[in-house]
């Protein structure tokens, strides 16, 4: 049950600017040694997500995401970057797949709760 946190593509924010706040801000941890990065989730489902950020990350990299969805907060959700595409403005669109099924369960519940509301 996917949730569109805004629209699927970052450029479409300009077409829904009044919904820009609805894109979920997310903290991106790439390594314990490096300070975290940030971006927004443009798409979220229990198994996959799409992330938009102006920070460059390589495909295949495992990242840990921290974000809030409704009343639920998720910390260090592990995901692998399946694909990375850079848009004409210099922003990166990342396609992510969540790695830990145990972490996907709470996301699913949060999405279901959000959808019910």
């Amino acid at each position, binding site marked *: 049950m996917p949730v569109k946190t805004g629209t699927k593509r970052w450029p479409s924010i300009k077409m829904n600017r009044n919904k820009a706040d609805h894109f979920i801000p997310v903290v991106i941890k790439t390594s314990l040694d490096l300070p975290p990065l940030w971006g927004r989730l443009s798409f979220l489902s229990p198994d996959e997500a799409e992330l938009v950020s*102006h920070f460059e990350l390589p495909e295949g990299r495992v990242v840990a995401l921290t974000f809030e969805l409704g009343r639920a907060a998720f910390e260090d959700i592990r995901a692998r970057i399946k694909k990375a595409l850079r848009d004409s403005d210099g922003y990166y669109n990342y396609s992510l797949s969540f790695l830990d099924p145990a972490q996907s369960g709470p996301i699913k519940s949060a999405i279901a709760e959000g959808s019910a509301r």
Partner: protein
Amino acid sequence: MFNTIQIICASEKNRTILRGIFKTLGADAVFSNDLNDALSVFEKARPAAVFIVDGEEPPAEIQLRELRRVAPFIPVIPLLKRRDATRAVGLMKAGALDCAQSPWTEEELRPLYRKALKLSGTVIELDSSALKRRRRALTLLLAAFFAFTGFAGGLYYGFNKYSPVARQPHSFYLPYSHPTGLVIKKDSVVISDWYSQGLYEHNTNNFGIKKVTSLAEVTPVAMAASQDALWLAGANGVIEKRLLDARYSVASKTAVFKPTPDSVCFDGLYFWTADSRTGTITKRMPDDALGMIRNFKYPGRKLSALTCDTRFLWVADSGLRGLAKLSLDDPERIISVTELDVYASKTLKITAMASKNGTIWFAGEDGDKALAFYKDEPK
């Protein structure tokens, strides 16, 4: 692209850095010392985006709130003095489009600046993309229409120009072999055949047979017609006048003519007969007896067949290999001779003729076949 941006920055050092960066990016940067200064020039500057330096007074959260109060949709981008993802996410939750990390460089700020300018696009830009899509679709539709029209026009033009013109045949082979007489009706051609003793009525266009009338008692050797009668010359020398009913009922018969005429015609006023063996043309009264008025000696070489209309006598002359035009008043004078290309066939023997509406019809034998054809009257 509208490229005015507003930068709220109190530090002169940071201003210098940011001025250089945004100048390189092509932005028209308007600097304000603080939020109040920014709001006072906000209406006048009408920036596409606002960049606020984090860590100054008032806090970035308050600046965000106040700016969004004035312009709810304007992109606001805090410039962080260090990489702090938690703060960045906090500011983004507060309404910031994104946050730039320190150190501020052209490479770091370029995507945020470009995205902010695109985000500052008005609703008109949104609609314009839809309009562009519609315009593109319309353009494609028009292009397809004109391409199709051009193709169809070219095809039509090429077809008309280069395809061979369907010509109506001027010559027809007959399903019988011994035609002797020819009469032209409104939309049909009637041909008599001596061997099968019949009258064959053909469709003028395709020469298909429309009707066959058997002449059990007559062996026709010549035929002519007027508005209301048909004359059949028999092999016995008798010319029968028949009605134009379904069975061509006999109306009258002449006495036996010697020599037997093998061509007959009616010019509307007089009846004409011809004997190809002697080359004699006879002018007759159009009564039942077809009484002779005068004989004429055909002046050409070899009379094959004769016909007439209201102006001329026409003779197919196998000796001259052409069509001779004679005067009705003086048949012993040839007005003109026009070569007939059908005489290229040495076996052709023209046996019947008729003239109507400027067209001369011929029927004849060519070897073991018979044919009918027509030509425009010679000038």
